[in-house]
């Protein structure tokens, strides 16, 4: 198993794979008179494509466009401001993923609030929040529930655990996002011309290969479910070009070791038990109906939005173009703030500071010189 993992990054395999992809792309270019264009919709893909150098190596032949892959980046500014305002409340412990700490709110970041003395904790494993609640019965413990389908089930585990232990001071601030609604939005909006999607490797663990049929049937567009190692990325892109050459749409699972046809049914049960569809606001897009999941009414006691109110003003307007970046309309380097006013030490928007943000990926992994 470890041997196989080594092969997935072995240059002896990966370098010829790059050449194979380029050759396939030249076939496509000959047939269609342009480069193939694919969008990845998973922040980890954005990062891996950049960090491994795959995107750089293919830049002359394949147009790889970053889409709405980073759950922090697609969260709209009002929601960010609301979470920061939540953290400012008295007698609370806020638990969150590391990514959220430096996301710029209109006035400040969670890190600023922490430095000023608020109890804000970064947890690698969200279920630990329940333990924090148990250990601090006189405080309200709230987890910031940001994430796509890979993270969402873990939120339900937390509620289950809190229920089991009779914890009364625990809740989640639900601000989740779903992949299908935003893909439908992008395709309906037709702002970007695509030959296919690089489908997320781990969201697909939850959803399963069959869940993407609508792309093929309703939109006539292809998708290849792909992992994150160099050889997986390259073979996924190769397959996308191959399918595109046939002229027909298809969904293919290039990550069968980990993703099944039906997805993880145990996870589906947990989601069905605790969650229900809700409308969510997306950065640069606005509200997409039924594009998120919220806790069912019977779990209101664990729903931070039902237990706490926050007062926020209109978000401060900036020249940040994250909203266009996540829709694949511009590349990070096309934003006038990129690398100048906006960089990891001083991010203007979430895309530059999130560990999965397109701008952060570009800044850290795609620049060849100053």
């Amino acid at each position, binding site marked *: 198993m470890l041997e196989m993992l080594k092969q997935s990054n072995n240059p002896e395999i990966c370098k010829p794979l790059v050449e194979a992809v380029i050759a396939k792309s030249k076939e496509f270019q000959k047939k269609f008179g342009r480069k193939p264009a694919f969008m990845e919709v998973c922040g980890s893909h954005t990062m891996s494509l950049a960090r491994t*150098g795959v995107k750089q190596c293919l830049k002359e032949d394949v147009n790889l466009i970053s889409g709405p892959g980073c759950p922090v980046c697609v969260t709209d500014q009002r929601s960010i401001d609301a979470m920061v305002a939540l953290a400012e409340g008295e007698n609370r412990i806020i638990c969150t993923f*590391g990514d959220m700490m430096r996301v710029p709110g209109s006035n400040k970041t969670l890190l600023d609030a922490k430095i000023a003395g608020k109890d804000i904790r970064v947890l690698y494993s969200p279920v630990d929040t329940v333990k924090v609640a148990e250990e601090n019965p006189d405080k309200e413990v709230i987890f910031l529930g940001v994430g796509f389908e890979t993270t969402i089930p873990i939120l339900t585990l937390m509620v289950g655990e809190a229920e089991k232990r009779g914890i009364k001071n625990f809740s989640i601030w639900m601000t989740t996002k779903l992949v299908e609604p935003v893909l439908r939005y992008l395709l309906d909006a037709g702002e970007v011309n695509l030959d296919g999607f690089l489908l997320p490797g781990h969201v697909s663990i939850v959803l399963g290969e069959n869940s993407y049929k609508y792309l093929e049937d309703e939109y006539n567009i292809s998708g290849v479910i792909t992992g994150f190692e160099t050889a997986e990325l390259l073979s996924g892109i190769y397959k996308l070009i191959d399918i595109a050459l046939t002229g027909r749409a298809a969904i293919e699972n290039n990550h069968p070791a980990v993703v099944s046809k039906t997805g993880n049914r145990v996870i589906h049960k947990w989601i069905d038990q605790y969650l229900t569809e809700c409308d969510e606001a997306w950065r640069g897009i606005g509200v997409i109906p039924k594009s998120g999941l919220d806790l069912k009414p019977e779990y209101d006691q664990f729903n931070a939005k039902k237990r706490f109110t926050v007062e926020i003003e209109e978000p401060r307007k900036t020249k940040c173009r994250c909203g266009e970046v996540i829709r694949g309309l511009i590349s990070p380097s096309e934003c006038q703030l990129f690398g100048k006013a906006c960089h990891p030490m001083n991010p203007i928007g979430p895309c530059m500071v999130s560990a999965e943000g397109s701008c952060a990926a570009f800044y850290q992994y795609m620049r060849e010189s100053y």
Partner: protein
Amino acid sequence: MEKYISLAHGDGGELSNRLIKDVFIEAFGDGNAALFDAASLTISTHRIAVTTDSFVIKPVFFPGGSIGKLAIAGTVNDLIVSGAKPAFLTCGFVIEEGFPISDLKRIVTDMAYEAKKTGVTIVAGDTKVVERGSADGVYINTTGIGTYEYNSGCSLEFEEGDAIIVSGTIGDHGIAVLTARGELGISVPIDSDCASLDKMLAGVLTSTDGVRIMRDPTRGGLATTLVEIAEDFQLTMKINELDLPVKEEVHGVCDLLGFDPMYLANEGKAIIVVANRDKDKVIDILREFPEGRDAVVIGSIIGKGKGQLLLETPLGSKRLLTRLSGTMFPRIC
């Protein structure tokens, strides 16, 4: 003897006196030095090297070492990478009220052992005690003095083609300490690489005059240190990702938690930039020492005039490396 440090130990009176005798002089020897407010030293050369460093590591005891060992090795290393033979050290302690004296003794014993091993004499010191809740147990500052005894030092005369060498695996200390804190819920069989490199690097300095510069990649890691060299001296440097020596276990933790070994601290490693003709000789010398057994060439200077550090990926593409920016928080999805 009391069991725990109290504020009285820092007030300069009876308890302070006892502490100095029973703990510090007991370990460091030279009772005579304590007779004066300043140490009187005879130094063989006109030029001396001076460096100072404070150690605030938490936890104070970690796999592979302690804050005591670190306090000596860290300053010894700063001297030797600058081309100077470590000779004298001072040490200042800021101790938290309630700190167990047995732990203090352990730390001080580590320091004495390391000092003896490296041939440095601890010639002056100071002790303060602060209220419970400050100082994370104990903070130590060491100032080191070294002499320029070696025929050649670090010339700073860089040339295109110069080799960039790292003396061993990177990220060990960072991972050992992070996991020792116990906050990450991960157990890793990795020790800190904390080590004094004086003999190993003296061996390098005495065998070749082609050393351009040496640095120890502590906080900020290998990448930050190389970026600093590149910018300080306006060099374009390129290192190869495939050549970076990283232990499997460190890779595993980094993958799990989203860290990058290039940005993790090292406390027993040196970066050496040396003339290309001498690189094999330097590697051979390094590998003769246990601290240098994994020494390897990781890249070279590919241009002058523009200060930047490039990384070549296994696929052959290049990308710019920057300093460590912000704390590395574990990632999410």
